[in-house]
């Protein structure tokens, strides 16, 4: 009978679809179930996916660990709320805020964009020289960036309310919003990975000298990935800020970074599949462990409660993965539409045409 026409574009990008469709399904099922707790968990899940993708965009392609993702998330969070909060809320929460900022109020989506852009701008300004460094020096300088961002966020009280919690943010982020943006950024991360910049980055990571000798400007490639990563993290920070509605600078520091790292490494840092799979797995695990923690705490079996249990299990799991399966669950490959299923071809080869 009729053969389905091969769709080469689809097969080349099947990874994106194989990941996006289940995510959409998760969202749909969540809406159908209608449980508020599950909706909250899934909303945050999608935000986490964006953040882990932000990490993957830089770390997965360049091989350099970026601790700064949490910092850019913070920059995005604070930037976006500064523009989305009503003047009244700002006057109450940030009395020392510069007056021109207090006056401004912008729509939610615009403020998200601003959050991403400010983060990207900061990255664009400071990061270029850092991209020259590799290995230990590269990681330490990027880590230093995180510390500096944290110190600034904690002490620039006029903008951030200092180390204290910032209140008064409107709850604008809902499941639909995060689903849409998650899919969008999934596409962006995939596009970047498969773009010439992404390819050149990965080539340079395997052999820096060889790459340089064919004219690849490693520094520029890394820079582009870093700025993109910052934008994504900043945008996600804005999403998260308008979900949680109150937060302090310490939400954007090492504990957060640990979670993102765990998600990416457990899933597999070499591709977007790893980012998605890892985030889903770790989220499931965390929620499961949390409910155990809560039950134990409520029943008062242990005097001071079960605190930190979730983190301990995650840390052990992370160490185990690094020892036993360093490339993560995905093992360095991406999910793909299986070859030949429904007549659609996988990545290799076009089918023989009927004569």
């Amino acid at each position, binding site marked *: 009978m009729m053969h389905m026409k091969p769709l080469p574009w689809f097969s080349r990008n099947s990874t994106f679809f194989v990941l996006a469709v289940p995510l959409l399904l998760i969202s749909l099922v969540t809406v159908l179930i209608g449980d508020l707790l599950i909706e909250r968990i899934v909303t945050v899940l999608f935000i986490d996916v964006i953040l882990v993708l932000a990490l993957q965009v830089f770390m997965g392609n360049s091989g350099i660990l970026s601790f700064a993702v949490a910092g850019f998330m913070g920059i995005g969070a604070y930037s976006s709320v500064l523009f989305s909060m009503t003047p009244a809320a700002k006057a109450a929460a940030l009395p020392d805020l510069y007056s021109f900022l207090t006056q401004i109020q912008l729509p939610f989506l615009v403020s998200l964009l601003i959050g991403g852009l400010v983060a990207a701008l900061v990255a664009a300004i400071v990061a270029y020289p850092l991209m020259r*460094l590799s290995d230990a020096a590269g990681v330490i300088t990027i880590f230093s960036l995180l*510390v500096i961002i944290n110190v600034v966020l904690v002490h620039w009280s006029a903008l951030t309310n200092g180390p204290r919690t910032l209140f008064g943010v409107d709850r604008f982020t809902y499941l639909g919003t995060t689903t849409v943006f998650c899919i969008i950024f999934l596409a962006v991360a995939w596009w970047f990975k498969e773009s010439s910049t992404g390819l050149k980055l990965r080539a340079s990571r395997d052999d820096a000298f060889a790459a340089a000798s064919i004219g690849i400007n490693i520094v520029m490639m890394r820079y582009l990935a870093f700025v993109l990563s910052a934008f994504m993290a900043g945008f996600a920070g804005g999403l998260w800020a308008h979900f949680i509605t109150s937060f302090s600078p310490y939400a954007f520091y090492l504990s957060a970074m640990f979670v993102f790292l765990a998600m990416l490494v457990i899933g597999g840092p070499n591709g977007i599949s790893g980012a998605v799979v890892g985030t889903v797995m770790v989220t499931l695990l965390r929620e499961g462990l949390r409910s155990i923690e809560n039950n134990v705490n409520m029943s008062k079996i242990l005097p001071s409660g079960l605190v930190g249990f979730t983190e*301990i299990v995650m840390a052990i799991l*992370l*160490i185990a993965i690094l020892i036993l399966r*360093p490339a993560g669950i995905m093992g360095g490959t991406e999910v793909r539409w299986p070859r030949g299923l429904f007549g659609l071809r996988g990545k290799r080869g076009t089918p023989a045409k009927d004569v």
Partner: protein
Amino acid sequence: MITLDFIINAISLGSTYALLALGMVIVYGILKLVNFAYGELIMITGYSLFVLALGPHLPWIIMAVLAVGVAVLTSYLTERVAFRPVRSNSFTAMLITSFAVSTLLQNAALLIISPRARGVPLPDVFSESVAIWGQSVPIRSLLAIVTSLLLLGLLVVLLRRTVLGIALRAASDNFRMTRMLGVPANLVISVAFAISGLLAGVVGLFWVGRTASVTPTIGAAPLLVAFVATVIGGMRSLLGAVVGGYIYGIVFSLIGVLLPQGLLEFREAFMFLIVILILLFRPEGLIRGVNSSRRV
């Protein structure tokens, strides 16, 4: 004001930081491991003191020795259990492992003991002062300086006079070649981690001595100090680490009195800005070394 009190405190701080940096570099030099779990060794020392104080009464010095022993043991164990299996993997994998170990230890303290600060026993001498040239100087600061110099002296003897020490320094220069001369890799690494634990433990005694308490996150600040001091000293040289620690301690103290109040809060940010600048423009650190060979 640059008084005697200030000078002693600055040097005392520098001494503490020097030991901290040394403990970090001794592992980094050989393994290229940036050990994020290093700060937790100080936390472990503090909690050991706390736990020991709950038991039968012991003289403080005994508790101190035991607490440092626990730090040494912890350091050794983290290497055996967590770092050795990933040693052949990439440098990034080891770093992430150390980050995971750090989280694990912090949350273990959170879980097993408490999220709240816990009091730590201190010798009476830590709260006493002595009068020098008409000024009151905390004995604790003097003890820190003396202890550091003693430890450094011992280490110098170990590193210069014993074969094991020579092997450690060689491993720091060129680990592969050291193995090819028949030096067992695991032995060298275990010793390095043990020394790292010893230094962190001793620093830990003085660190908790400042507040007489310990919290699960007490290791975060010393870790950052170790990073900065290590980078200043050039990351590869043991002598550089010591000098870097002293420089950092003294500069930090100076900044504390020289900066206007508004900028003082950003002191830490400044230090890390310096870290970035050093790594960008003078990665071999501020100390001129003797190595002319190719560095990896």
